[in-house]
């Protein structure tokens, strides 16, 4: 039987947020890449919330952008409202969130993919991975090696690497009360064959679930009964490459309302009809975006829960009901939504539903996102047990870059916990036994004072440049920025002001204690009530210095921001840097891939089992595996040192 047979470098399976980044990264690095999707119309689909970013997720997007990913640029093109969260708190937790025009977002990303050199889009369901045994080279262990993929129609694409980005589509089923459909999100075709092929290869799968609330017809809602939520006056872009001036625009509003006791009564009365409480759903759901049923049951003493009504786009009347995801039956949903002020006469366009899907426990992966057991097979996104567009995109980018690095015979991209949220995300996924879809949170990053959204470029741009996803011009911009920051900080630390009348009057006017002896400008910036901007009044040399350094009377806002943060929080930053120094030492101690843990004496049994199961790449990673104690790590360290 004649069949289609093609040869490419990389096959990316799935064109969601992970797949798009993976495919773009590979193609941009010059590799011939095919991206498979069950529907070209669903490229970069946002099947749940209509926004990008948010606390810690905003950080992820900025890091992705710094490395050369696409999501930040794409949301800058298609947002309809933007807000910096947590501005009243420390700079480390400021986080950007933008409401997206969903359809526009998807279309814009599709356009980027369609016009990307070396990238081909193919609408087809991949049903099988093709592989062969490869004799162990250095490791002595035989490993499988990917050789290609096969589609439902029988076409074969030979490839050097494949990247699984199947999101929530594998053996997906959607539940709305008693009604169950075997589809992916939004009624899209599920991928029903690939799971079996993965299992045959020895990959272990599990079931996770997630949910989404209803979409309502804007015309049926009474906004006069809700509080209006505006975007920021001054919009900050996600991408370091977007000119802030180019995106200042008219924004749309979101709306806030609340559930009440009547809502909760209806839910409680119908819990037996919820597939989760009735035990029909077997998958594990995320606790951080609980369904409204969960909230009412678990937080029974709360009298009300917030509900945000958010537009799905500029050219649709559909509104997203944030805070009320549910898998209750349609009639219960309608009754419960209609108890909420402003929603009394709501018409539901799409029902809320829960979705269940196959995914993996990512402990089967190296931090490069390559499968430990299969050379050339990578994976990213919700398939790895995460949740969220941003988490998915970041993994997609890393998986794409590392597939490319592997094919090109170059060093992999390994991001650690001290340099990025992406590093935290991946380390948590591959090192911990996660039992629910993993969402990024700022509390997961132990060095978050260093991992700010404002300095993602300073942290990661250069890595993106070395990989080849950041241009020389972008890099040059960064080098200048870096140098200006250092020069201005040095000046502020060296320029001293005396305790003269002008200065004392200035301090008094700003409610600041008078000087007893001369102080540096930097010392004054450290005072909570003062800032770089305020000090402009007495900082006589500033303009001339700026002119001599950057050719303008003021340093750019992005430079001033860094100068101010680095001076104001110097003590805290220093402390974290010292911790990072310690941390890095252990990360650098690599464990050979073929280490036989049974030969290491004095390890506790539990530790031995866990180490064999996870096969960490470094002592640092080993130390984070639950069940491996500091003493076990010491034992391992000494063993490795004595067997060099």
């Amino acid at each position, binding site marked *: 039987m004649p069949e289609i047979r093609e040869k490419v470098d990389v096959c990316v399976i799935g064109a969601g947020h992970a797949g798009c980044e993976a495919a773009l990264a590979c193609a941009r690095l010059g590799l011939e890449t095919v991206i498979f999707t069950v529907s070209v119309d669903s490229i970069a689909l946002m099947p749940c*919330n209509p926004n990008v970013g948010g*606390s*810690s997720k905003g950080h992820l997007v900025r890091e992705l952008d710094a490395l050369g990913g696409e999501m930040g640029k794409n949301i800058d093109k298609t947002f309809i409202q933007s807000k910096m*969260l*947590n501005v*009243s*708190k*420390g*700079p*480390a*937790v400021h986080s950007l969130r933008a409401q997206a025009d969903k359809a526009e977002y998807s279309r814009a990303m599709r356009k980027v993919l369609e016009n990307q050199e070396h990238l081909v889009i193919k609408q087809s369901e991949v049903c099988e991975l093709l592989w062969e045994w490869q004799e162990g080279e250095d490791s002595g262990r035989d490993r499988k090696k990917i050789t290609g993929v096969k589609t439902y129609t029988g076409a074969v694409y030979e490839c050097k690497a494949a990247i699984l980005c199947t999101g929530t589509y594998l053996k997906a089923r959607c539940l709305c009360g008693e009604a169950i459909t075997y589809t992916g999100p939004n009624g899209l075709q599920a991928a029903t064959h690939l799971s079996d092929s993965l299992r045959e290869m020895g990959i272990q799968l599990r079931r996770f679930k997630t949910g989404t*609330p209803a979409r309502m017809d804007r015309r049926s809602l009474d906004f006069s009964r809700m509080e209006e939520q505006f975007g920021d006056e001054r919009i900050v872009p996600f991408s370091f490459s977007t000119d802030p001036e180019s995106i200042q625009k008219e924004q749309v509003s979101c709306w806030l309302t609340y559930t009440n006791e009547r809502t909760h009564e209806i839910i409680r009365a119908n819990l037996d009809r919820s597939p989760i409480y009735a035990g029909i759903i077997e998958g594990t759901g995320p*606790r*951080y*975006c*609980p369904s409204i049923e969960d*909230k009412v049951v*678990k*937080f029974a003493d*709360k009298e009300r*829960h*917030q509900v*945000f009504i958010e537009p799905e786009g500029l050219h649709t009347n559909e509104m997203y009901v*944030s*805070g009320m*995801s549910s898998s209750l039956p349609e009639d219960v949903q309608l009754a419960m939504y209609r108890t909420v002020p402003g929603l009394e006469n709501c018409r539901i366009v799409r029902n809320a539903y829960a979705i269940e899907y196959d995914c993996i426990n990512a402990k089967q992966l190296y931090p490069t996102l390559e499968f430990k057991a299969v050379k050339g097979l990578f994976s990213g996104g919700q398939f790895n047990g995460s949740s969220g567009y941003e988490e998915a995109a970041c993994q997609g980018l890393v998986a794409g870059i590392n597939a490319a690095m592997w094919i090109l015979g170059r060093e992999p991209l390994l991001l650690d916990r001290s340099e990025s949220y992406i590093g935290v995300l991946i380390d948590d996924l591959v090192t*911990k036994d996660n039992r629910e879809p993993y969402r990024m*949170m*700022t*509390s*997961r990053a132990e060095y*978050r*004072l260093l991992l700010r959204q404002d300095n993602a470029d300073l942290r990661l741009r250069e890595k993106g440049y070395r990989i080849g996803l950041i241009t020389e011009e972008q890099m040059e911009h960064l080098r200048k920025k870096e140098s200006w920051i250092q020069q201005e900080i040095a000046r502020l630390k060296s320029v001293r002001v005396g305790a003269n009348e002008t200065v004392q009057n200035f301090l008094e006017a700003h409610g600041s204690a008078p000087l007893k002896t001369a102080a540096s400008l930097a010392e004054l910036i450290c005072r*909570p009530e003062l800032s770089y901007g305020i000090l402009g009044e007495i900082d006589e040399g500033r303009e001339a210095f700026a002119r001599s350094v950057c050719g303008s009377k003021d340093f750019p806002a992005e430079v001033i921001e860094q100068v101010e943060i680095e001076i104001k929080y110097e003590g*805290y930053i220093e402390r*974290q840097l010292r*911790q990072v120094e*310690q*941390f890095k*030492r*252990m990360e650098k101690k690599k464990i050979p891939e073929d280490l036989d843990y049974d030969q290491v*004496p*004095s*390890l*506790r049994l539990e530790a031995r089992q866990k180490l064999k199961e996870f096969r960490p790449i470094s*002592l640092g990673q080993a*130390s984070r595996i*639950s069940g491996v*104690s*500091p*003493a*076990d*790590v*010491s*034992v391992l*360290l*000494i*063993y490795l*040192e*004595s067997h060099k």
Partner: protein
Amino acid sequence: MEIDRNTDTIAAVATALSDSGIGIIRISGRDSIAVADSVFQTKSGRKILLDAESHTIHYGFIKDTSGEILDEVMVSVMRAPKSYTAENVAEINCHGGVLMMRKILQRVLEAGARMAEPGEFTKRAFLNGRIDLSKAEAVMDIIHSQNEFALASSVGQLRGKLSEQIKELRGEILYETAFIESALDDPEHISLEGYPEKLLGRVESLLERVNRLIQTADSGRILKEGIRTVIIGKPNAGKSSLLNVLLGEERAIVTEIAGTTRDVLEEYISLHGIGLRVTDTAGIRDTEDRIERMGVEKAREYAQKADLILYVVDASLPLDGDDVESMSLIGDHRAVILLNKSDLESVVSEEEIRKFAAEHAGGPIPDIVKTSMREGSGIEELERVIRNLFFQGEISSNGEVVITNIRHKEALQRVSKSLTLVKKSIEDGMGEDFYSIDLMDAYRELGRITGEQVEDDLVEEIFSKFCMGK
């Protein structure tokens, strides 16, 4: 972070088995010489160690924080890499006996050193290439046994008031941190309006409780002087052998201090950070001999004041009136009954001695351990039992919790420091996210006392206590 601490500065009493009463406190690590320098000065009050050449020895004094002289010492300075650990090393040679050594060690710890883990000097020496590979396994074994021990003796696995208090403190700290974090993660659902003022009050209360615990350690006689231990039993039951076996234990730190009275020799034994001051007594038996009678009276007197009674029973002989006498000394003291000579044909069974204790001890039935001093068996079990009795770090006297373990005290001091930093952040008007950095540090340190791991506690707490998300 805990696992790689090779750059920091550690200190411990280097165990010199000598009856001269001279002891050495060894300090190793990057800042070891600076640490020694900060507690040491010459007779004329000068600070000289920082500039001292390697392999030189200096005469002077160690002073306490109030400037009072603690001891007259010699300090030797050895700079990296020419030292035992191949790091900077300072050794304080002091001659004030065991109590003084503990005081000096305490000063050194306050000056910035950390208490060394068992085997840590050797581990560093190995990692820095000073010890050859054949010793590697021995080092691993030391660490391994420490590991097993830490798990078995952590407060978390034992009951007791200290454990309860620490858990309570941890619980409160975790709750506050989780609240802050959930608000940071979900600012639109959870507000921190007015929260810093509330937190300030709570942190002050936490701080007060932690500091009170630390003070108990400072005033704690046991931490300073060791557990007063008395060995009782009939003559020839094996009391002196027990003392000798304990002294002969390789891991025990042994020195000698003259007792308060010349006729009793006290031995000082350190079991993993807790000191035992062991007094061997004359055998208890009904006697007409005047001199021996005095000895027996003395034994009674010691037993009354003891923190711990080790009662050695000769299992090869039937119990008699002398045993009734010995048993009655126990009262409600912490005690261990050693069923000795278990290698011989035994006449007294464990069951029998338990019944006997119930009848005559006058308090709760003590733990019973089968030993053979001749074969040296049962000693590990004895150590375990003693550790369980004392090593959870508390001796409760009059219902007060008292810290007895120097490591626990060290950890609490770090907790106190972290909480003070939280307070300062609040007072300086820093963003709420800054509070959780130090709150979590405090939480982790408390966990070191109870032996609990942090892992995902925070994330768990956030989800279980606060309603998050879309």
